[in-house]
C-alpha cells in the first residue's frame, strides 16, 4: 500500500480551520505529485461549535478518503483537542496553539506555538490559521514550503496575499526554530 498520512486540523468555527485544510490538500495534490483527499464537517450543528478538517495524503490514489487515526493532529481549541486527542495514532504528532489548548500530560510528541498571539502581532487575529500552517509546514514533510505558499496564494482573497505570506513565514520560522531546539525530526 502507498504511504499514507492522515492530518486532522481542528478548532472552532471562524478560525479558518477549513481553509487551512484546503490549502494543505491543494498544496499536496495540485502543487506536488502526491494525492490528497480533504473532508470536513458540515451542517448547522457544526456552526459556532467544533470544527474539523481532515486531509488524507498518499503517494498513490487515496482509496479510503477518511481518517482512521490521525498521524498529525493540529488543535486550535481545547474542546477540539479533548475530543480528538484520544483518537491519534500512537506515534502521532500533536500540534497546538499554546494559548488555546492545555495539553494532557501523556502527550508524547507535542509541539506548540502561540499562533493566535503571533497573528495578533501581525494585526489580524484571523491569520492565526496561516501562522499555524507555516508552523506545520516546517515540522512535517506533508508538502514543501514552496508548494504550501503557492497553495496559500491561490486560496486567499485578492489583496490579502502579503499579510498571509507574512503570517506563513512567521509560523514557518518559528517552526524551524523549534525544530532546532527540540530536535524533532521531520516526518
Amino acid at each position: 500500500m502507498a504511504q499514507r498520512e492522515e492530518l486532522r486540523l481542528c478548532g472552532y468555527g471562524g478560525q479558518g480551520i477549513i481553509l487551512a485544510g484546503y490549502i494543505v490538500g491543494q498544496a499536496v495534490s495540485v502543487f506536488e505529485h502526491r494525492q490528497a483527499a480533504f473532508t470536513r464537517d458540515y451542517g448547522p450543528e457544526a456552526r459556532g461549535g467544533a470544527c474539523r478538517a481532515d486531509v488524507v495524503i498518499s503517494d498513490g490514489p487515496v482509496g479510503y478518503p477518511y481518517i482512521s487515526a490521525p498521524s498529525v493532529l493540529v488543535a486550535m481549541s481545547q474542546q477540539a483537542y479533548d475530543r480528538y486527542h484520544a483518537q491519534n495514532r500512537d506515534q502521532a504528532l500533536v500540534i497546538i496553539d499554546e494559548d488555546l489548548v492545555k495539553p494532557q500530560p501523556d502527550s508524547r510528541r507535542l509541539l506548540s506555538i502561540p499562533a493566535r498571539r503571533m497573528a495578533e502581532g501581525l494585526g489580524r487575529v484571523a491569520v492565526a490559521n496561516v501562522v499555524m500552517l507555516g508552523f506545520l509546514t516546517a515540522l512535517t514533510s506533508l508538502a514543501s514550503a514552496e508548494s504550501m505558499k503557492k497553495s496559500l496564494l491561490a486560496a486567499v482573497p485578492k489583496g490579502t496575499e502579503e499579510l498571509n505570506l507574512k503570517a506563513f513565514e512567521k509560523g514557518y520560522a518559528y517552526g524551524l526554530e523549534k525544530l532546532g531546539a527540540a530536535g524533532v525530526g521531520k516526518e
Partner: protein
Amino acid sequence: MPEREYLAGEFFLSGDDACAEGAISAGCRFFAGYPITPATEIAERMSERLPEVGGNYIQMEDELGSMAAVLGASWAGTKAMTATSGPGFSLMMENIGLGIMTETPCVVVNIQRGGPSTGLPTLTGQGDMMQARWGSHGPYSIIALSPSSPQELYDLTIRAFNLSEKYRLPVLVMSEAATGHMYEKVVIPPSGEIELLARRKPTVPPEAYLPFAPDTDLVPPMANAGEGYRLHVTGLTHDERGYPAMTVEAQDRLVRRLVDKIERNKADIIALEEDGTGDAEVVICSYGVSARVSQIAVERARGEGIRVGLLRLITVWPFPDDRVRELARQVKAFVVPEINYGQIALEVERCACGLAKVVLVPHMGGRVHAPELILEAVRQAAR
C-alpha cells in the same frame, strides 16, 4: 471572458464543484435549481460560472419548477441540468417522467444524504438508488451513473450529458454527500480534448419530419423549439407526429420503445470497473463512495489470502444483469455494501439466480462503512 470558459488544468475541488465544472465542460449552459444540502454547492458554482460562459442560471421557487424549467430549456436547444438531494429528488419525479415521455435530454444530479424524509441532511447516504430507477409513475427505463470521486463526478457529468443527448432522456448522476463534499485533485482537460456528443438533428424539412419516429437505434432525431418545425410535444401517449393517441397500440409502441432504447443499448451504456474478478471466489459489488471503502476491504482480504474481486458499478442503471449472471456462475458469493438497507443488493440477488450467495452489508447512513464491516462479510462469504 473566453479564457475562463474552460478551467483546463489541475484543481483541488469538491465533488460538487467538479460536477459543476463537468457540466460546464460538457456544454451545459442552463441550470435551474433550488438549494439543498449537500448539493447546494453545485448551484452556487453554477450561479457564478454560467454567466462567465454565456449561460443562464435561474434559481427556481422549488424543485418542481427546477425540473420543469430544465426540460423547457432543453427544448430551447440548450444543454441543461439541475442538482438536488433526496427531498428535492422526490419532488422532481413527476417531471422526470415528463422528460422520459417527451424524450428530453438533460441531466439531474442527486447528491444523496441520509434518509428517509429530512433524515440526516448533511451526512451521507445511498438510499435513493431504487428511487432513481422507479421513482416516477408508469413503466420506463432510466440511465443512472455513480461516481466514486470528485474526478469522476467531473467525468461522469460529461458522460451523463453525452448519454442524455444520445438516448434522449434525463440522465441521473447518483452521487452522495461523501463524494460531493470531498475535495480531491480534479484534472480538467483542455476543451478540445473532451468528447462531446451533439444533439442529433433532423435531416428532413419540417413537412417531412416526424418528431417521434425513431432511427434504427430507437432514438428519434430532435428539433428544437424556434427552428420552424412546428413541434407538438406532449406527456400524453402520442404517435410519431407527437400527437396524443389514446390507444393501446400507440401506448404499446411508445412505451416499449422508451424502455427498449435503453435496454437494447446496454452494451453502449453500461460502464463497469473490475479489479481481480478473474479468479475471485467472492466479488464485492459496489458503487459510489462505497466502492472506495470496498477497495480497502479487498486489499485487506487479499492480504489474508482470500480471492476477492471488486465489481464497481459506474453505470448503476440499466443494471448489468449479464455480467452479474456470468460472475454468479464463478463465485461463491457477492458481498454488497450499501449505505441503505439493501437496494442494489436486490438486483444482484436477482441476477445471481441462486448460484451465488448474496450478502448485503447495510449501513443506514450518516457515514461510510467501516472497512472492517465489509472485510468481515467477505471473510464469512469466503468460508
